[in-house]
């Protein structure tokens, strides 16, 4: 009962985590169905119609119900702790943000029960296809609108919390990197999500009240949908990855026992990505023949620069460190190496003439999964292993964690690397089946095997969770020798978060405190 009425940021954070992990599982099951269908040519495991619904809901669940809100979950729990605050600025609004999610998830998945089935136009819902679809599409629109509202008010809450509630001494440039990335993410959400809401409202009007925003016969413009949709959804890609980068940038220093290399450069690179993120949306539209190609080409190339700076700063952090390979670190290193590939294969699409071949093929599917799975999902698990002792006072088992990592790392590359080759060989994305003569079967089988290995890899993780919850909480304040304020309080923290806050004189208050202690002991 307490969980239903709570306005405590930590409890809401935990609710977010469970809710989003649930939809990660749902989205994962849908992905397994997709990969099973595509394993062999001319497969009849799923009908075309069912396939379209399933891949659409896979993407919608993963993006809107898992990745975007799980950062709000980690953010909810850790932003107030990292800046030494008692709670979020608006605890009730915070609860409202969370409680919009379950109805949205229900609405979206209720599509499977209505006539015509769930939304089947891809998570991009391109009009006019999305104008034709059945009622599942309306449910999808309403669900995404709700989720958008949740993340907009959540973003405002995060910004006010960060601007107004920092502990004494916690200047902006002493804020932990995870908090910084949440700040830029919140800005993107605040500026971009209303555009998505407008787009969805237009689509809803077109579908239900005879509007013609996207109908050329009524004076509308088909490509307009893509412009407004990607004006949100490209920044949304950064909404989905920046907090993950933040988590990695907390973990690499702790397990290298060094500060983050180039803290300020990293903050500016994050802002750079956020700002440039608003000027690259039409690189999703190079083949519409309706966009200014050179402009969006150069901007897309440019966004590779701050992204590269981040990778170099991570390497600089490892360089000369004292590196231990604990489970959080394994996932963080997995992130760095996979995100490197996800960054490099993304630049191919910035070269417009190369994109003419690659656009809407499996090469792009490989790219987004290297960014959002190799990147974001690895960061989610890095964060889980890293912060688990803080949230629940228990440690996840290292050995099971290693097993989980090895399965995921191998399965991931097996599932998604072949997609590059399929795309280059001309396999379009979003096809329910392919001809036997196409020659795409061997690589698809490989990819499906990879997907199954990822699924198997979740078993040690689930066992790990179950075993951990059966143990009594035994973790000290700071099991990893952390740098940031969340490690200054008990595990789990009390309702009021801190009994006392150590002085903040740098971006690593806990490191400073440890140094002072050793100095005092030596004297």
């Amino acid at each position, binding site marked *: 009962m307490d969980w239903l009425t709570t306005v405590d940021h930590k409890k809401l954070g935990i609710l977010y985590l469970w809710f989003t992990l649930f939809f990660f599982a749902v989205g994962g099951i849908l992905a397994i169905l997709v990969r099973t269908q595509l394993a062999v040519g001319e497969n009849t495991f799923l009908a075309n119609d069912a396939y379209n619904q399933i891949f659409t809901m896979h993407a919608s669940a993963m993006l809107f119900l898992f990745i975007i809100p799980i950062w709000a979950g980690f953010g909810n729990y850790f932003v107030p702790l990292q800046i030494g605050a008692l709670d979020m600025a608006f605890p009730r609004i915070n609860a409202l943000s969370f409680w919009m999610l379950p109805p949205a998830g229900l609405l979206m998945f209720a599509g499977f029960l209505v006539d015509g089935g769930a939304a089947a136009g891809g998570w991009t819902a391109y009009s006019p296809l999305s104008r034709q679809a059945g009622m599942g599409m309306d449910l999808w629109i309403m669900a995404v609108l709700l989720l958008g509202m949740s993340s907009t008010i959540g973003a405002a809450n995060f910004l006010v919390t960060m601007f107004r509630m920092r502990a004494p001494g916690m200047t902006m440039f002493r804020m932990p990197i995870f908090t910084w990335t949440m700040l830029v993410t919140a800005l993107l959400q605040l500026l971009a999500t209303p555009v998505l809401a407008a787009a969805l409202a237009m689509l809803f009007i077109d579908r239900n009240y005879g509007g013609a925003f996207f109908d050329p016969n009524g004076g509308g413009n088909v490509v307009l949908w893509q412009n407004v949709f990607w004006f949100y959804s490209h920044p949304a890609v950064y909404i989905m990855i920046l907090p993950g980068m933040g988590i990695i940038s907390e973990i690499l220093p702790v397990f290298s026992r060094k500060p983050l290399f180039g803290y300020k*450069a990293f903050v500016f690179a994050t802002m750079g990505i956020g700002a440039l993120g608003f000027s690259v949306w039409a690189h999703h539209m190079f083949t519409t023949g309706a966009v200014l190609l050179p402009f969006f080409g150069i901007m897309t190339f440019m966004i590779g620069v701050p992204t590269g*700076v981040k990778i170099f700063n991570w390497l*600089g952090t490892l360089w000369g460190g004292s*590196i231990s*390979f604990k489970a959080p670190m394994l996932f963080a290193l997995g992130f760095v190496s996979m995100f490197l*590939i996800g960054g490099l294969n993304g630049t191919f699409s910035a070269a417009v003439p190369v994109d*003419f071949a690659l656009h809407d093929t499996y090469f792009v599917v490989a790219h987004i999964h290297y960014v959002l799975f190799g990147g974001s999902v690895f960061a989610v698990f890095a964060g889980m292993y890293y912060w688990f002792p803080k949230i629940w006072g228990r440690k996840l088992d290292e050995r099971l964690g290693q097993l989980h990592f090895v399965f995921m790392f191998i399965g991931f590359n097996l599932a998604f690397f*072949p997609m590059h080759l399929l795309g*280059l060989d001309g396999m379009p*994305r979003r096809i329910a089946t392919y001809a036997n003569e196409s020659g795409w079967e061997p690589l698809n089988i490989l990819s499906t095997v990879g997907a199954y290995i990822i699924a198997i890899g979740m078993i040690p993780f689930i066992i790990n969770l179950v075993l951990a919850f059966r143990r009594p909480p035994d973790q000290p304040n700071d099991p990893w020798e952390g740098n940031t304020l969340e490690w200054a309080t008990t595990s789990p923290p009390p309702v009021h978060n801190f009994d006392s806050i150590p002085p903040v004189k740098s971006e690593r208050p806990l490191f400073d405190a440890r140094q002072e202690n050793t100095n005092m002991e030596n004297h």
Partner: protein
Amino acid sequence: MQRSLKHIRLLATLLIALVLGLGSASTALAVQPGGITDEAHEMHDLFLIMLYFSIALFVIIASVLVYALIRYRRKNDELPKQVHGSNRIEILWTGIPIIIVIVLFTLSLITLASVEKKAEQNALTIEVTGFQYQWKFVYDLNDLGEGEFAEDGYITIIGTPANEPELVLPVDEVVEFNLKSTDVIHSFYVRDFLYKLDLIPGRINQFSVTPRETGVFRAQCAELCGVNHSLMRFTVRIVEREEFDIWIRETVKHLQQDQDNKKTVRVNEGKK
């Protein structure tokens, strides 16, 4: 001792994964077909430049990563030197990527200008209409490029999922395509052109290519267009000019036998 063994094993696993990754990455070289049009050849060259750059960057960065992981693994409790960063290095690794992306962008711009060149006035022009869930190809007999044909009229080929249509083109000539759609967005994608362009209701998109190889090539719709999107397949058959002219004449004759109407419709019998 056992601990460090475990770490080394882990690092070895990472190394092997890296080598495997690299191995598969380089097979990508062989996978993208070189293309069969002038435009495709240029775009393929650009693709290869991007690929070499990416592989080089990946090898350098991944090697540094693996080296750092082995070299700087934790050996004792001593705190390493607390380096906070270096402005000089930051400027270096911001500046070099800027130069690289400007070079790559410039190269891509040159290729873009070249492949987007407009066809000459009298090029063979084909109107392509996408519909749920197939293609319609229309040849205007007054617009056959280098070939001449005495009569007015059109050849119209309409495909069905069961009878995939065939688009016949002459080799070594510029062909211009006008793309239209009557229902939703489709995308005209021929793998061996290394090119696709969307068919959008309410607008006409144009592009032109010069095929340089004869043969039969598979193609299909590349923009999700509904339930049977995956069945919107067709083939492109590229033939010598003489064979193309014969094909035109025979097709027209065939049609005139069926009906007197100048505006003729012919449903393709499917793959030959």
